[in-house]
């Protein structure tokens, strides 16, 4: 866009929210001073917790409401429990959580198989859309994957 001779003030809404008083602006703007009262504020009733919910060790109690979806379980759950023994400042909190996520994706496949369901990984990865909107890219991916697999097989069979 050529900005010379461009009357930006004609753009609908231009300048409507100009507010010279809007400093220091959000997020500091509405500071109330209540922070000095720390956690002594009115709270909603505590949600009953009847599943395992991991809690950051940087807070003394659960928040009034909690998410109860997908409680920790299996090997990934054990890794997550370890991670939550450490504060959010520590790598030993976050790196185990990332590791647990990777383990969990394999657990998900095993769980599907245990239930007698064979996951359609290609469909889950949206290859139908890839075929529709990017067929050349799909062919390229298949070709590259086949090439890499062939090279690997050749390399390892020669090694034997």
């Amino acid at each position, binding site marked *: 866009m050529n900005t010379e001779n461009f009357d930006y003030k004609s753009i609908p*809404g231009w300048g409507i929210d100009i507010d010279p008083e809007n400093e220091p602006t959000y997020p500091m703007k509405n500071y109330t001073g209540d922070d000095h009262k720390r956690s002594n504020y009115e709270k909603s009733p505590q949600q009953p917790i009847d599943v395992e919910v991991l809690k950051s060790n940087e807070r003394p109690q659960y928040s009034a409401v909690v998410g109860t979806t*997908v409680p920790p379980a299996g090997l990934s759950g054990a890794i997550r429990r370890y991670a939550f023994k450490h504060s959010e400042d520590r790598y030993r909190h976050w790196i185990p959580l990332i590791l647990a996520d990777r383990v*969990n994706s394999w657990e998900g496949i095993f769980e599907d198989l245990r239930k007698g369901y064979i996951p359609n990984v290609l469909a889950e990865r949206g290859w139908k859309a890839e075929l529709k909107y990017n067929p050349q890219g799909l062919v390229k991916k298949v070709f590259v994957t086949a090439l890499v697999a062939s090279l690997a097989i050749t390399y390892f069979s020669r090694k034997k």
Partner: protein
Amino acid sequence: MLAMNYRGPYRVRAEQRPMPEILHPEDAIVRVTRTCICGSDLHLYHGMVPDTRVGSTFGHEFTGIIEEVGPLVTNVKIGDQVLVPFNIACGKCNFCKQGLYGNCHESNSMATAVGGIFGYSHTAGGYDGGQAEYVRVPYANTGPTVIPADMDPDDAVLLTDVVPTGYQAAEMGGIKEGDTVVVFGAGPIGIMAARCAWFFGAARVIIIDHIDYRLEFAKNYAKCEAYNFKSMEDPVLFIKKITDWYGADVCIDCVGCEAEGNTLQTFTGKVTLMQAGAATALQWAINSVKKGGIVSIVGVYGPPFNYVPIGNVVNKGITIRANQASVKRLLPKLIDHVQSGRLNPKGLITHRIPLEEVSDAYHIFSSKLDECIKTVLIPSTKA
């Protein structure tokens, strides 16, 4: 009920899940009528956000109809058509009282670094999201807002995140009349930030990305200048040059942790995960802004840490402002902007896809196929 189900990086599917239940007296159950895939959902989809558990349902942008309410819910009633801000906020803690609804202290037990967010990993509270036919909405007295009768539902669903986040990105930039504003990232949030920068009196708005169709869209939608960083040797030098070798007054990072454009950042942030994603856009923002300028960040980064030139922040005297958007605080103003025609959120929507086809929808958005800007998922129960 049908819901999106995360199965691991790059793998999602739609499948039957149990109906959500009222678990707290201030809960509501909402029948979802529209739900979007957000650019930040792609960080989950790509496995970049720690504690994203298999079996989770994503989705923090949704509208719906109140189906059931807990005994303490008074602000909405069964049958109300509501838009639901992506922040889960109690409305009572010190942070909520300051309008910091994205930083509520009573909605996330699992991390103190972020408030509760629908369908955004256990790091953001472990709540199921709205990419489903039904969803549990905690603190229904605070978040859900009745959609004005004359508002297009497609506009309403974008008021749950995209519009407030883009607007707040511009607001936090402290833009003054006559300022030059550079926005990094021409996704829906970046485009909205560029559009809203004019509201604060910018004289020049520039958007930087590497995807041509998005730049073209941004140029038309946000009436801004649009440049592809792949066509330039050095984006920071380019910005210095086009600002009379001075730097932009305000730089806005709307990209976050999956930025492209810097090999070292990509290798350490995306390939080896040695930092919480590639902070290329933030690096460029810090280095492109003028001395004493303001950098506003709404791009999503992981919790651990990122490599950014903090020494330049000190030496240039830069102010950095950042936060999750405080949707509820901004809604009255933004509803007015939409109803008066100054903002056209639904103009961002390029794809409407049934919830059943969520796998394809994610792939289309993630791979930027079919010139996708913004995808809305439609559950079959919407009627």
